[in-house]
């Protein structure tokens, strides 16, 4: 069973976001970059499947050179090889263009399953996975918390929680799964794993290598154009509910929720 895991590098979730002076992007210096947390679930699930069915796990990332570090982390966890799509012309690409480049790189690989995260914790889009599946013409199973591949390796059953329900969905392979928390507990890279990762193959590809036209990527190729990035809207200053006892405080809060916030 050959498995592809798409890996996006994102700012660590603790990062303070600073908006660049031009007001259309964020300041990228001083950011600690990590693997998108959802992609860790993808790596883990791929490794578990490999342990059961054999085959290879290939990690594919798109972004600048620094993404190599996150790919190496996945290799240290146990993935077999990495591909980095790196091209200056990609800077500022939107989800559509990103998915196009990833799908083009994946198209020529041998795969039964592809994992992406259900969303990137940076742009909070959740569009790339489904778009890759569309470009490759394979089914997608989104936001999956549990999955099982049939013994013959030809189909899978996956659990997809939706509002108030869990859908049990069946699909043939190849298919693309987007991962959700609950799917598994990602393993940590071990020291021997880290040593080994240094010798695992990591190939770099440019848009030209993929036969793609740079004009369709980057800022210029965006279908969704960013007009402005601003800090979140300010909330009105909150009140601390005063009172001598918990009862008084609770009474004060209930009154405010009734009279001022008009909740009930």
């Amino acid at each position, binding site marked *: 069973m050959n498995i592809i895991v798409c890996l996006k590098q994102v700012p660590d979730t603790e990062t303070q976001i600073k908006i660049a002076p031009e007001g259309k992007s964020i300041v990228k210096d001083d950011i600690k970059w990590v693997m998108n947390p959802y992609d860790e679930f993808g790596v883990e699930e791929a490794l578990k499947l490999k342990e059961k069915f054999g085959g290879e796990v290939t990690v594919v990332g798109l972004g600048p050179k620094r993404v190599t570090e996150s790919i190496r982390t996945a290799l240290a966890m146990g993935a077999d090889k990495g591909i980095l799509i790196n091209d200056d012309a990609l800077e500022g690409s939107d989800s559509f263009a990103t998915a196009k480049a990833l799908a083009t790189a994946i198209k020529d690989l041998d795969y039964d399953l592809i994992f992406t995260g259900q969303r990137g914790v940076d742009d909070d889009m959740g569009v790339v996975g489904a*778009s890759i599946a569309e470009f490759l013409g394979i089914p997608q199973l989104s*936001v999956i918390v549990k999955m099982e591949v049939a013994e013959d390796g030809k189909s899978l059953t996956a659990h997809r*929680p939706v509002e108030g329900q869990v859908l049990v969905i069946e699909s043939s392979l190849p298919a693309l799964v987007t991962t959700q928390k609950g799917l598994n507990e990602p393993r940590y890279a071990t020291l021997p794993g880290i040593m080994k990762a240094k010798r695992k193959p990591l190939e770099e590809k440019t848009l030209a290598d993929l036969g793609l036209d740079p004009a369709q990527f980057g800022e210029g190729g965006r279908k969704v154009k960013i007009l402005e990035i601003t800090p*979140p809207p300010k909330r009105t200053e909150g*009140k601390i509910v005063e009172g001598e006892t918990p009862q008084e405080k609770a009474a004060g809060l209930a009154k405010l929720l009734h009279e001022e916030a008009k909740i009930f």
Partner: protein
Amino acid sequence: MAPGVWTIVEQRDGEIRKITYEIVSEGRRLADELGQKLTVVLLGSDIKDKATELGHYGADRVLVADDPRLGTYTTGAYVSVISQLAKAEEPAMILMGASSQGKDLSARLSARMGAGMAQDCTAFSLEDGNLVAIRPTYAGKAYEKVTFEDSWPQMATARPNVMSIAEPDTSRSAEVVDASFNLEDSAVMTKVVEVRKDESGKIDLTEADKIVSGGRGMKGPENYKILEDLAEVIGATVGASRSAVDAGWRPHSDQVGQTGKVVSPNLYIACGISGAIQHLAGMSTSKVIVAINKDEEAPIFQKADYGVVGDLFEVVPALTEEVKKYL
């Protein structure tokens, strides 16, 4: 590009879901401002009778795709049908809810249409006839204002519970049109083999009007009873922080935050939750935020409209009694 605003209906077991009314109301507003028609696309099995109600909420036209294979949502079938209809009619915009279904559908549909897509938006407006959307990014630490360039149709989804629902007007009626489409079995691709309903009758956090959430300050799973009591009285759904979920006190599906659910209720009560940035990411678009925490320095108080500094084990039961006076 032809004019016209499209919104996609979300139905389950033939019942229209609340998010549909939010997006139809919003579509109506945009169509009025553009001076264009609002077409509401209704997919399902034996579903045509729902068109009347959609007319009351502002649809000029309801485009009905009726097929047994559209009764239960599958990505493949819905994308196939909607893309055929959209390619035939070329609407300017396609809007839907950022529900589980809407997110899955919009992502794939946008790729099939070759269109740009803005996910999980909190506001829409128009500039020179183009859709402009506001969307939280970096877990709500920044807000993006986006528009669409040389991209057709302009596609976006709206975060549930954020956009308001217009009063239905029973004097309005929509033209009901049978859609013509050709759905190949091979386009369906996946099969829903089982639907496991949450029998608790609990409203999903993403749709809840009120949420009472508990964090590590709850001390243990047995103590959530006091939150459930409050939730029961005010009609809320109980949520949790990641610490509570990781401790095994609550299921994953209860987690609010950056790696959990993004919620926008009218009322969010955080009990024994410190307000870590990753938690705030999931609830910062709530309308009224209440924090109950014994540590007055807890960061949650900076986001709260109302803060109570105190022991939740004393304050929460007292609050449950106090709110009864107003119900």
